[in-house]
């Protein structure tokens, strides 16, 4: 990536609080105009990293460069970034208009011009007509819009969003996700979005950095992270908790032959040249790629594993099957209810079945991946 395309460059940034390392040697290049998400469970360091970009925490080590300028030690008010806080942090003693116009005077915009710009931002987030209200008189969704307008009024080069949808109910959340994505596309500024919700990250992001224990586990385009998790943690977090253990048998013509508890060898396409025969290997298959059969189906190169059915849960769109392999490993299978398994009615909890999948859907974990 060309350095002029980089909006925020994070170089080996570390943040420690006493003995606890919140962010550990993280390096990231966030591109101009992209919707970038930091995704991970609580305590993974994603918010700390965002706060360091905003200037609310100073890194213990490393460098933060925004549009070519080293801002590592600059206070928040000298950075070309603005933040939408998780709690929105609207000033309760100021009305909506004054909240949005709060920072304009520091950009030498005052009086009628400031009012005009603030009103324009309220239009942008469809909050026109609320300018004289006070924050305590607004609903959660309205506050979120005002917070967004207030940050955007500063015309930041990078907008930081710290789980801004966390306080909204499910339905409103879905709507705002689409709106935010559209807004980002039309404004063309860089959004850095922190969330613990993988679906939310997938809905909006161009790229996702999945974080775990202060490190970036995987940084990829959204669909890559979803379809090709590189580590077990990412696979688990992206909702693919179906882990298999195997061993590399041989590698030829870009194909890796894995031996496992499955009845047949699995042929997996590989671009990596780090694998050698006899290497132990872990791989996953997404729950929606798994099929349940009464017979071992090896006809077209499919892989089958015999399992015991432990549970079935109807969830509307899907039926979730929980099965256990003879080695004790537990797997999750999603059956789409509008395209049920051919022999769906013959499976009973406690019964035996064959779990099968197309070898193409096998995702091999990175070598020595956690």
């Amino acid at each position: 990536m060309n350095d002029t395309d980089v909006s925020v460059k994070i170089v080996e940034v570390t943040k420690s609080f006493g003995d606890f390392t919140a962010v550990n040697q993280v390096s990231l290049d966030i591109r101009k105009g992209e919707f970038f998400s930091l995704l991970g469970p609580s305590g993974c360091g994603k918010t700390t990293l965002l706060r360091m970009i905003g200037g609310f925490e100073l890194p213990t080590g490393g460098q933060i460069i925004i549009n070519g300028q080293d801002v590592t030690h600059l206070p928040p008010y000298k950075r070309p970034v603005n933040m939408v806080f998780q709690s929105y942090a609207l000033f309760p003693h100021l009305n909506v208009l004054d909240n949005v116009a709060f920072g304009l005077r520091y950009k030498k915009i005052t009086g009628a011009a400031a009012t005009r710009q603030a009103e324009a931002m309220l239009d942008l987030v469809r909050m026109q007509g609320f300018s004289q209200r006070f924050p305590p008189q607004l609903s959660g969704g309205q506050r979120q819009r005002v917070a967004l307008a207030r940050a955007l009024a500063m015309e930041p080069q990078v907008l930081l969003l710290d789980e801004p949808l966390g306080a909204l109910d499910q339905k409103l959340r879905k709507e705002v996700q689409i709106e935010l994505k559209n807004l980002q596309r039309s404004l063309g500024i860089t959004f850095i979005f922190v969330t613990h919700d993988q679906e939310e990250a997938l809905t909006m992001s161009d790229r996702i950095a999945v974080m775990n224990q202060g490190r970036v586990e995987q940084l990829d385009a959204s669909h890559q992270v979803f379809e090709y998790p590189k580590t077990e943690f990412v696979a688990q977090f992206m909702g693919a908790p179906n882990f298999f253990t195997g061993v590399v048998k041989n590698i030829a013509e870009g194909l890796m032959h894995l031996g496992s508890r499955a009845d047949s060898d699995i042929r997996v396409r590989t671009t990596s040249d780090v694998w050698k025969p006899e290497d132990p290997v872990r791989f996953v298959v997404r729950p929606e790629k798994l099929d349940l059969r009464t017979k071992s189906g090896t006809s077209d190169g499919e892989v089958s594993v015999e399992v015991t059915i432990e549970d079935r849960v109807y969830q509307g769109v899907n039926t979730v099957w929980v099965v256990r392999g003879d080695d004790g490993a537990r797997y999750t299978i999603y059956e789409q209810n509008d395209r049920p398994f051919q022999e769906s009615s013959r499976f009973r909890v406690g019964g035996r079945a064959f779990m099968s999948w197309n070898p193409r859907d096998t995702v091999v974990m990175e070598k020595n991946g956690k």
Partner: protein
Amino acid sequence: MRKSDSSSGRAPYLLISPTWLVLGLFFILPLFIMLMISFGQRGTYGGLKPIVDLGAYLLSGEFLANYRQTLDPLYLQIYWRSLWMAVVTTALCLLISYPVAYYIAVVAPARRKNLLLALVVIPFWTSFLIRTYAWMLVLRTEGLVNSLLLGTGIIDAPLSLLYNEMAVMIGLVYGELPFMILPLYASLEKLDLTLLEASGDLGANHPSTFWRVTVPLTMPGIVAGIVLVFIPSIGQFVVSDLLGGAKSMLAGNLIQNQFAVARNKPFGSAVAFELTAVVLLLLMAYAWYTKRKGQEAML
């Protein structure tokens, strides 16, 4: 809390009746007696001169003689000094207390907050009178400050630190400090610190954030502290009596003198009543302020 619950009938009134009884007997009734006395005249041996013809007394306007006397330039000078001392005391208390309260509420680690608050409150365990005497020991010619300064050779002759307005000011500020720190702490403690971060994020530097966010949001504490400090300061007589000289007489001393020394109860009552009126006006202004802001009063 302002809404009355009609379903519970007279019960709330019954419940607060002890308060009213105490207030009525020990506050409103004495105030009324004081008002009556302030219209009277001093008897030859103290006490009150009997009024022979009430009609003539009222018509002649003689009942206002005490109030007329309070406007004497000599006394006006005393009120002015009291007012000035109270204003400066309040201002100094605010200036000293805000950083202290800010430190305890915002900066100090959570585990040390209670200790720091205790340190603010602990002086209350000792009588205010004793603490004021202690200041005499500190400030007098052979006192702590002078011995230290002499001992270290900074000065050759002891400074006269006691019996002047400065000593009174030190005593007043010292005594009223906790009454400023505590309400300030209470409102700073409630301050949402992300608001300060948001202000910084929007381009405001620290002083700007302080004036545009911190001060407006802690205004209830500031106003409560001002009221709590100003009112006792303007009526103060112990501090000026012990630490002040002849030239630092305050309205409180004037009143005390009229009752204890000059034995002119009617005139003392008139001054006291004027002072009470000033304090009541101030409290009413405070009540108006909290109502306008829709906040719960901190007093």
